[in-house]
Structures are given as structure tokens and as C-alpha cells.
């Protein structure tokens, strides 16, 4: 079994609900608490297993906002595990979940240095490294109804942009989504073979935009005012040429 997440960048609206649900579940779960530093102070900070960042891809008028929730990718070749000197970091044989045994961690930060995705954060109050557990204390809980045995972030997502499943099963929802939607790994060149995959935004027609037609006859427009006579003449010829196709 190779458990992991698929995150749909097409439908993610960047609301941070997954991060909040994660914090809520895990701070009271087996890996908790997720310490906060000065939560009511001027610069509140603390441990989070999931962080959402917002980017602008491409330039106007083709620009698009992309929201990227990122947590542990539960990499197949997880360097955070191999660099750990104490054996506190480990990857489970049975389902591939990468975990930290807090009772063994000495807080040297080396695993966080080895992680390209910023998935590991040191709990400065407890002095040990903490990270996404894929809600291991939830997904196997037989006391929960079957549909609730999923990570907190997946359950809470209001746009259903997050999927949880077994990547070793070619017919699972996550495998199918990756296959059909061109799911990809982030920063694959580092070579850790991250398990979590991201679905790119779908191709869709761009919304109609108000286009300003060049005003050719005399007055107005600052841009035409500053143009040279030759420029104006060329502009006129061009719009005349362009108008040939119009009715």
C-alpha cells in the first residue's frame, strides 16, 4: 500500500480550511500538541503540518491565481528518513507513511534541512520535529464510520479539491485522477519521488474581456496623441487592414 494525497489545483480556492482542520485534529491527536508561540501576540506563530501559498502564474491577460496546499509528500525516497541520526524518522513498510517517533528525536533539524517541501517543523516548546501523519490516528480508527476514515484535511475541503487513497492500486480514485488529469509531482528533480500528486488547472476558454478598439479618427486617446505622424499613418493603415475581414 502506498497512501497519499491528490490535490486539485483547478478547484482549490485557497481557503486554508484544510490547514485549520489539520491543526485542529493533530493538536489534539497522538502527535499533539502543535505548539503556538504568542498566539495572541503581535506576531503569532506556531507549528503547522499544512501550509497554503498563493501564486500568480503567467502574465496579464493570461494570468491565473494558483493556490497550493503543501504538506508532507510521503516520498518514496525520503531523505528526511535516511539523514536522521537517531532513527526517530521512519517510513512505514505497510503503507509508506513517513512519521517521527517523538520519544527518539533529538531536535537536530537535519530532516527539515533535507526536506525540499518544508513539510517538517520543529516544535520549539517540545524540542522535537513534527510533521503530517496523514492522520494515521484517524484513517485506521475502526470506531469511526468508514467514510470518516480519511485525513482531516480531505474531509473538510469545501471544494473537494483533496483526495486520499492508495497509489499502489491502479483503480483507486487517486490513481485514476492522476492518470486522467495528468497529475504531477512538485520539484521532482530533487529525486525524492514524492507520493502526493497535484492536478494541474483544466484548460478552459478564457472569460470574454473588454477590448478597446483603436480610435483612428482624429481625437482622444493619449497614446495616439504622442505618436509621430508616421506612427499615426501606420496605425491607420493597420486598422484599415484589420477591418478588411469585418462586415
Amino acid at each position, binding site marked *: 500500500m502506498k497512501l497519499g494525497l491528490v490535490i486539485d489545483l483547478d478547484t482549490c480556492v485557497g481557503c486554508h480550511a484544510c490547514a485549520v482542520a489539520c491543526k485542529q485534529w493533530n493538536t489534539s491527536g497522538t502527535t499533539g500538541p502543535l505548539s503556538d508561540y504568542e498566539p495572541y501576540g503581535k506576531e503569532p506563530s506556531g507549528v503547522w503540518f499544512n501550509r497554503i*501559498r498563493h501564486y500568480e502564474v503567467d502574465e496579464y491577460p493570461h494570468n491565473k491565481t*494558483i493556490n497550493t496546499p503543501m504538506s508532507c509528500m510521503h516520498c518514496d525516497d525520503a531523505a528526511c528518513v535516511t539523514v536522521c*541520526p537517531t532513527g526517530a524518522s521512519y517510513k512505514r513498510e505497510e503503507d509508506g507513511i513517513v512519521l517521527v517517533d517523538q520519544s527518539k528525536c*533529538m531536535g537536530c533539524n537535519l530532516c527539515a534541512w533535507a526536506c*525540499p517541501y518544508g513539510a517538517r517543523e520543529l516544535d520549539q516548546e517540545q524540542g522535537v520535529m513534527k510533521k503530517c501523519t496523514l492522520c494515521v490516528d484517524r484513517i485506521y480508527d475502526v470506531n469511526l464510520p468508514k467514510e470518516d476514515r480519511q485525513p482531516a484535511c480531505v474531509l473538510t475541503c469545501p471544494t473537494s479539491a483533496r483526495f486520499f487513497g492508495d497509489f499502489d492500486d491502479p483503480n483507486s480514485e487517486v490513481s485514476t485522477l492522476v492518470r486522467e488529469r495528468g497529475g504531477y509531482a*512538485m520539484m521532482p528533480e*530533487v529525486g525524492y519521488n514524492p507520493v502526493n500528486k497535484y492536478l494541474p488547472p483544466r484548460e478552459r476558454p478564457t472569460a470574454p474581456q473588454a477590448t478597446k478598439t483603436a480610435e483612428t479618427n482624429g481625437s482622444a486617446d493619449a497614446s495616439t496623441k504622442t505618436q509621430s505622424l508616421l506612427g499615426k499613418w501606420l496605425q491607420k493603415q493597420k486598422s484599415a487592414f484589420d477591418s478588411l475581414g469585418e462586415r
Partner: protein
Amino acid sequence: MHPAPSVIIFTVTAGAGYGLLFWLALSRLAGLTPTISNGQFIAVGIIGLILVTVGLLSSTLHLANPKNAWRSFMRFRTSWLSREAVFAVLFYPLALLWLLLSGNAFLSLLVAALCIVILVCTAMIYASLKTIRQWNNALTPVNFVLLGLSAGAALFTLITLIQGVYTPRVLALTIAVIAAAAFSKLLYFSWIGQPAGPTINTALGFTRATVQLLDVGHSSDTFLTKEFGYEVARAKIIWARVIAIVVGFVLPLVFLTGLLGTPGIAHAALASLMVLAGVFVERWLFFAEARHVVTLYHGQQRT
């Protein structure tokens, strides 16, 4: 990367200590200081061990949970940090036995080899990280070894001068190793100047368009921004490089090659101080110049 003082002190002083012990062992093997007495030999050894111990103690200061430090011997097979810890601890009984047996030839060979092995292990902790291209190259271990040996050699020259057991061959080796360290460090600076590695585009998988950060998603510093988001002005980096090269390599070579008069104790003392100061600046730079790939997610276009 955030330059933690404890780690800088650790790598510099322990490096100088292992360097000094390497030269002491080599001088035993190659007969560099034939007139050294048993007591003098042990004295140099103890100075070396003190430097190493101060360094190792400093290294534990950056641990957030030092009570588990003993567990760092557990993953020798995969972790360079574990390998370093194991060798560093194994070194003590071996070095003490070596000093007690007043430099038995076999043990001298073993001590010299182990000094290099430990320096390489320390460097590989950093060099093995694929996330930091400024560290993830072969020059990192070369630099760590040569800089440790430089500091050790300068100290060895000074101590043998004070003890009166100095021979010109010690000085010649010191000059050679400082020159080699200078060369490899200059090579390193030019190497890391080449653009390479992941960009914000590969980090997010949008490789056919520009990508820029709109919002990082948190309102104040996090563990990640504090640990990896260390930013230094370019001008400061350039100055630090000039200081590291001039103080760490050029001035010591000026003092030791006799350009300011035949090298005596004063020359060697100044040279030792300068090599150590230069390596401190170099080690600060080693961290300050390193750019972790996670900074791409925080808006850097490239590392």
C-alpha cells in the same frame, strides 16, 4: 540558511583540533619533529583533544532535545551525522591510547586517518543535502578537510616553535596546505556562482509561464522562514568573502613565507589567529550563502 553560532563554533574548533592531531600523528609517522619529547608530544595531543571537545560540546547546543543525543549513534548505515557521532566518540579512547603509548606508529596512522574521516563526515552532513546546491557538491568535503588541516597546521607550527622542536618541513607543509585551501575555496566561490538547480517553476510544476508569489499564507515568521529564509545583502557577502580570503589565507601566507621577516613565534601566532578568524568568517559564509529550495515556495525565483 540561518548561520547558528553553535554549529559554526563546532565545525571550526573541532576542525582545527582534528587538523592539529592529524599533523601531530603525521609528524610521528614522517619524523617531522624528531626532537619532540614525550611530554611535549602529549601536550600537543591534549591541546588538540581540548579543541575537539569544545567543538563537540558546542555542537550539542543546537539540539532542541539534547537528552536524546545519545541516540545519534543509531543510524550509522544511512546518516552522515550518525557516522560523525560514532567516529567522534570512537576517537577518544583511540587518541588517549595513542598518547599513552607515545605515538605508536600503527596508532599514529589510525589517528591520522580517523581525523580525515571525521572531517569528511562533518562535511558530508551538509554535502549530502540535495536541497541546498551550494553544499551539495564535492568541493564541500574538500574545503572542510583542507580548512581543518590549515588551522591545525598553523597551530602546529606555532606550538612546535614554542616548544623548540620546530623544523622547516613543518612550515613548508603549513604553507602548502593553506595555499591548497585557498585554491579550493576560490574554486568553490566560482562554482556556486553558476546558476543551477530547481526554480520557482519546477518547484510548482508551472514550467511554461512565469510564476510569482502573491501571498505566502502566514502573517509572521515561521520555523521555515527563520531556519531557511536567511537573507544577506549581496554587498555584505562580497565583503565577507574578501575578508575570509585575505585574513584566512593571504595574510597567514605573508607571515609564514617570510615576507615580513623570518617566521618566528610572533609570526606563527598571528598566522594561527588569522587562519582561525578567516575560517570563522568562511564558515559563516558557508551558511549565509546557502539557499534552501524551500525558499522557492516563499517566492524566490531560483536558489
